[in-house]
């Protein structure tokens, strides 16, 4: 076990080191920013101060267009954008999507898994619905709701709900079946049956799908922000600013890399949390 962690750390270090070498070798800081730029951008965006112009760095030959990229960080700072705030906004959208979307999807999955009849009618509709990528709806929704928060949140809720259906469906239909038979022969009906038998039996399958829903929520939130928001991590990644100027992404790669790393970290943390929570809920499982 320790050996594996060692290899992991070595590999990680090698990755960072290799990147630094490549960055120095390519020497195009506007495309492959050196590690110092990345760190600098991170520090600046976290609000600990302005990014010093690269020409201050000793021993670095700066091509003219490098100034342009640090302009972007300055613009962001002027607009009051910080990393923490952006992350918080994105996370809030993710959580909203999960809190609203999961029950919706689970309800649908429960209905379809429980009643053959409902399944026959609803499953074809579900297949159609899930075939349309949630983010593609965003332009249509905008016509109805304009540039509102709801307009951005709906695709996230939609994506989460759609992914939550199948694991629930599978859990109720395939896993819970025999337990329901046993319980009904013990006289259980209605709410007792649902709460004490169906849901616990389907829980492992449902929770297995949870991690996937979380990942989808992040992806959709970031995507929605990239397309149509004025705040959040997605917005940060495409260069901040108003949506109307989205046609041209004016991004400093250092900012992008910082953004991706932070998103990856947040995603990993939430995944860990989801796994821990699932494990707790199914302590009784083998």
């Amino acid at each position: 076990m320790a050996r594996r962690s060692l290899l992991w750390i070595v590999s990680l270090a090698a990755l960072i080191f290799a990147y630094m070498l490549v960055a120095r070798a390519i020497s195009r800081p506007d495309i492959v920013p050196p590690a110092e730029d990345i760190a600098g951008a991170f520090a600046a965006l976290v609000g600990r101060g302005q990014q010093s112009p690269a020409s201050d760095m000793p021993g670095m030959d700066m091509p003219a267009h490098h100034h342009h990229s640090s302009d972007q960080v300055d613009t962001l700072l002027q607009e009051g954008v910080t990393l923490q705030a952006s992350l918080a906004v994105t996370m809030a959208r993710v959580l909203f999507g999960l809190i609203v979307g999961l029950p919706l999807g689970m309800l649908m999955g429960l209905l379809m898994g429980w009643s053959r009849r409902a399944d026959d009618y609803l499953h074809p509709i579900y297949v159609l619905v899930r075939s349309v990528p949630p983010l593609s709806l965003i332009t249509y929704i905008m016509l109805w709701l304009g540039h509102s928060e709801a307009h951005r949140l709906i695709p996230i809720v939609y994506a989460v709900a759609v992914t939550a259906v199948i694991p629930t469906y599978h859990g109720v239909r395939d896993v819970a079946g025999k337990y329901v038979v046993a319980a009904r022969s013990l006289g259980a009906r209605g709410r007792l049956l649902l709460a004490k038998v169906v849901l616990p039996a389907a829980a492992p399958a449902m929770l297995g799908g949870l991690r996937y829903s979380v990942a989808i929520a992040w992806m959709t939130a970031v995507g929605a922000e990239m397309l149509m928001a004025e705040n959040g991590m997605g917005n940060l990644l495409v260069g901040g600013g108003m949506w109307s100027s989205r046609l041209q992404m004016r991004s400093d790669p250092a900012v992008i890399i910082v953004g991706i790393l932070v998103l990856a970290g947040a995603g990993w943390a939430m995944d860990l949390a989801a796994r821990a929570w699932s494990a707790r809920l199914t302590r009784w499982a083998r």
Partner: protein
Amino acid sequence: MMGAVRVRRAIVALVAVAVLYGIAAQIGRGRLPDRIWMGAHYVDNVKLLPTWQQLAEEGAYLVESEILLDSVVVSTRRVAIGLVLGSVAGILLGLLTGWASRIESLADPWVTFFRFAPALALLPLYVVWFGYGETSKVLLIATNVAVITLLGAHQGVRGVPRVYLDAAASLGAGRWLRFRKIVLPAAFPSIFGSVRIAVGLAWVTIVVAELIDARMPSLGYLLALSGTYPRVPTMLIALATVGALVLVFDLLALLLHARATRWMGRTA
């Protein structure tokens, strides 16, 4: 398992949805606002819920003018190339990391990074590196597909029941033979299952990538354009087309999965 009853109910459900939409469109005809604020100006005569007839007319126009076809071809090509590239890379890497644990530990930080970086977040980076155009889009799809299929292949290899390997070893099978004839087939369900998931993700990715870098012809462009005018019938048709393509690809992936796991029972 297609009982006649199930097919009948499916048709009823779909027809009901179509009819309900038609009714909603008719009701909305007079009542829905047709003046939309587009952020800087108003636009008149926007049909938020176009009737089936309007949709049919628009559809005919799009098909005749070959706008739809061109868009479909372009987007589909990107998805297909991205899928193939990504699957091949992902499956190979997944098999490798699953089979050789030392390599797995080395590759793990990479994989974890790509796994948790939201798929679309890499787009701006790729644009910076590869510019706007085909490369960044196809590469984005390939990356996302590779991550998913890598995990699928990895888990497939890892999940092979020990007993099969032991049985093969005691029959004298060498490492390579064991891999080819035992591990690989046993990993198929997981691999092709992940391909199916990757298909859905590939389409999500291309749509967003094309929405951001919208240029003719592509389905994303069609969506973006019909959003800026706005021209709702085109938008809905484009959405339906994307949905249909997703369905077709998904069906193909499902068939592939079924074919590769023919020897398994229902529990594939």
